[in-house]
């Protein structure tokens, strides 16, 4: 039985469905990346797994049990960090630790928090408030908070998309290192195919919304540890990259093909500003305007 399983999951917010018939099965310890365009329902998918929203149809199961609400067994790293701005780095993480390990003696709690602060290399910023930190540092706090909850599944919702390229690659390395050490089950949502190829065991494209669903998963067979520079020249990397990209592009191409309509463009010439303004011409009536028909097709 898969560890995390979504079967026939659909979700709508009053309009056309955002997600429909999403099926996903993850084994324990697997790192899966879900790649898709922005606005295709990626965050909705994470919210459903996290239990922050309930599916309209289908079920989300974790370890055989149906997910009925959010819980600390699924650590979420939100896209916008979601740190509480009135708490320091330490306090933000301690809030989570207090909640998940209420019976831990205070000294052990403190050691636990410190351990995760150190894991994301933020020990010097321990007592700073989020607004005193850079975006990358905030995101690391958010990762540390999720990890400190010792969740069974780590849900990463575009955790690096708001960061500059350099910080992003540093954090990618850090995520891979932490995953290698802890062997958590990870669902990474991203719009960056290279990031997915670098980190994941398996890549699943999400078709563009509305009514998004998961495509066929692509196993990433590249050996670990993966070196970012070496990968660029790896033929297997290039093949997979092309495969995933084509899948994603294929969905949009398929969608475009369905759009055929006739546009009628009015034949209007720009006004001649040089012409003398002696005789004022009457503006054309709609039926006097010559029209050109253009047919848009794939």
């Amino acid at each position, binding site marked *: 039985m898969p560890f995390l399983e979504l079967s026939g999951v659909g979700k709508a917010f009053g309009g056309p469905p955002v997600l429909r018939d999403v099926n996903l099965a993850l084994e324990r310890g697997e790192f899966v990346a879900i790649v898709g365009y922005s606005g295709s329902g990626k965050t909705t998918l994470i919210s459903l797994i*996290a239990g*922050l929203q309930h599916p309209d149809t289908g079920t989300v199961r974790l370890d055989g049990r149906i997910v009925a*609400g*959010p*819980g*600390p067994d*699924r*650590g*979420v790293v*939100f896209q*916008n960090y*979601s740190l*509480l701005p*009135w708490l320091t780095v330490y306090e933000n993480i301690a*809030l*989570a630790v207090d*909640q*998940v390990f209420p019976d831990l003696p205070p000294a052990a709690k403190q050691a636990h928090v410190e351990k995760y602060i150190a894991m994301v290399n933020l020990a010097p910023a321990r007592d700073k408030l989020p607004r005193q930190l850079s975006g990358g540092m905030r995101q690391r706090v958010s990762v540390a908070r999720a990890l400190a*909850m010792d969740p069974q599944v780590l849900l990463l919702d575009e955790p690096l998309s708001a960061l500059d390229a350099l910080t992003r690659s540093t954090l990618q390395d850090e995520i891979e290192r932490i995953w290698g050490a802890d062997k958590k089950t990870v669902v990474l949502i991203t719009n960056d195919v290279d990031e997915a190829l670098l980190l994941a065991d398996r890549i699943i494209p999400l078709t563009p919304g509305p009514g998004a669903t998961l495509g066929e998963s692509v196993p990433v067979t590249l050996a670990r540890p993966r070196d970012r520079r070496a990968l660029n020249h790896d033929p297997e990397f290039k093949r997979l990259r092309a495969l995933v990209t084509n899948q994603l592009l294929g969905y949009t191409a398929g969608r475009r093909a369905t759009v055929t309509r006739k546009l009628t463009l009015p034949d209007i010439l720009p006004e001649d500003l040089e012409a003398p303004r002696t005789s004022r011409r009457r503006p054309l009536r709609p039926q006097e305007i010559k029209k050109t028909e253009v047919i848009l097709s794939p």
Partner: protein
Amino acid sequence: MKKFKLDWLVLPLVGVAVIVGLWAVCSATWAKDLPSPAKTWESSKPYIVEPFAKRGEMDQGILRFTWYSLVLVAQGYALALIVGTPIGFCLGLSKAFTKTFDPIIQILRPVSPLAWLPLGLVLFLGTGKEAGTYGALFTIAVCAMWPTVLNTAVGVRAVPQDYLNVGRVLKLSRWKMLTKILIPATLPYMFTGFRLSLGIAWLVIVAAEMLTGRPGVGGFLWQEYNALIYEHIILSIIVIGLVGFVLDRLMSLLEARFKSA
């Protein structure tokens, strides 16, 4: 405009001088009953030079009167916050509560303190001599409550969903959700409400004292009007204004502290 040294001090003084000049001109020309600035100063001197003197029930140093008023305001204001903040939270958290009570709040909100006071006096008629005090407290609390109520409600509604999601993922208890997330996130809004409420409480105290005849700046003002000592009306107005200004500034400082946090 060009800046010069001490412009922050000189320009406000120029403003004051213009108003005092206008006042002097008015009292010298068409408003013969309006005491001139010099006369006002002369007559007010004993109250200012010995600000804490107590010569009789309604003949005390001006700061002593102010102190009485401030004590009463503090009590009424505290009552307003204690009652108003939870109502604000309920309004912000529950749509049903909002639908039930928002219309009546909108109707009660614009009612003048002068209208509430007699009702306050009636409510506490049973307390005999103290009815004035309780009535005044009631009026201050009722009038000063609204900005706190409404700002807290707005603040609670404006708590970002992200913060609430953090609480939900952590499975915080209702109490922890309130103390760890909702209250800290709403604090800046609450303090804006607190500051506005304090301004209103100070407005109300004067009216309440005038009507109940309690010793205080407002009571003093009304008594001196009846005693035909018009200079002291002006003294009272200046003191009321200054105290209100200082209170507002103090609250602004507090507010800024919480906004940055």
